């Protein structure tokens, strides 16, 4: 479970990949659902699922951040250049940042009239109504364009990991796939 200076524990690895898969799923679902016709089977189901998974994902990312702060952070791999170390750290912080911008803006769209957000049939996250003028429209634009930006950042993040794996042939990507590098 635990991280060490050399590698990630199972908890960090699982959370990383669940967040990654959920991000792509929510992006795809969101992109697709906004153009559904009124009589489409998914017209209601799509947004309901998007909101529910979005709230759960935001909770997971909060847990993940707490875990990250409480754990030892694995040190960058020694062969990485100074630039790669700085850039990857900045990328990680930015990714967390844009995720929260997307979570908060999404929440603000759906709660602009004071309605809460139902997470499946399990619980409801309360809404606080319109906190600023044109909230649904402004939050909607932010949600959309920051999600596009996040997709570009995620692509960069993935390309960088693949570069380390295939070009530099170091353990960067393998460390996020297995906890055996901890020793």
């Amino acid at each position, binding site marked *: 479970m635990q991280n060490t200076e050399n590698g990630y524990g199972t908890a960090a690895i699982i959370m990383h990949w669940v967040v990654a898969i959920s991000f792509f799923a929510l992006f795809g679902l969101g992109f697709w659902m906004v153009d559904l016709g*009124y*009589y489409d089977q998914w017209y209601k189901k799509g*947004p309901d699922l998007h909101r529910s998974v979005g709230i759960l994902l935001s909770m997971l990312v909060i847990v993940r951040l707490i875990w990250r702060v409480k754990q030892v952070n694995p040190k960058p791999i020694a062969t990485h250049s100074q630039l790669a170390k700085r850039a990857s750290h900045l990328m990680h912080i930015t990714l967390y940042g844009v995720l929260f911008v997307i979570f908060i803006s999404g929440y603000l769209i759906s*709660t602009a*009239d004071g*309605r809460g957000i139902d997470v499946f049939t399990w619980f409801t996250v309360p809404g606080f109504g*319109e906190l600023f003028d044109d909230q*649904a429209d402004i939050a909607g634009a932010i949600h959309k364009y920051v999600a596009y930006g996040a997709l570009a950042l995620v692509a960069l993040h993935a390309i960088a990991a693949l570069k380390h794996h295939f070009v530099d042939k170091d353990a960067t990507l393998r460390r996020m796939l297995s906890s055996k590098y901890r020793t």
Partner: protein
Amino acid sequence: MKKLLAGVTTSLLISTLAMTASAADYVIDTKGAHASINFKIQHLGYSWLTGRFDKFSGKFNYDENNIAASKIEVSIDVASINSNHAERDKHLRSDDFLSVDEFATAKFVSKKVIDKGDGKLLIQGDLTLHNVTKSIEIDAVKIGEGKDPWGGYRVGFAGKTRLGLKDFGIKTNLGPASTHVDLELHIEGVKV
């Protein structure tokens, strides 16, 4: 005889004065919110979905004795559409429906007002909505007029009209029962 003539002249004068006084300009009381532009549209054919435009302004001219000379002009801030559901309203403002970014204002300008008697009026005019201008007819009825308790003078009407979504270039398909939207207008004017 002289007295009678004088009496007739006076009463004529008074009624003329009264007539000119009743042909007057009014401002729609949006400030005090004694006016509303409501709409309703069928949901799947199972119920009515209602909403309104929160922001609009307008003025009219009305003369009880010469209704045909009446005129009305109303501007609506289309983005103020409010169906009591933030996500739906966002959708209604989008390019799927009203495209408020491009076409922020709707406007109605009357061309002809027909007195149908009994306080009933037929108002014909041009409505510009979603960048489409079409002539429409509003069935209206005067509700009442008179002095208000605060030194002003008011007259109020209720009106109804039906618009086809396609006629105004709104192509999103909401189903066969929901091709038209009914507008219900409640207008109170304060004499200026």
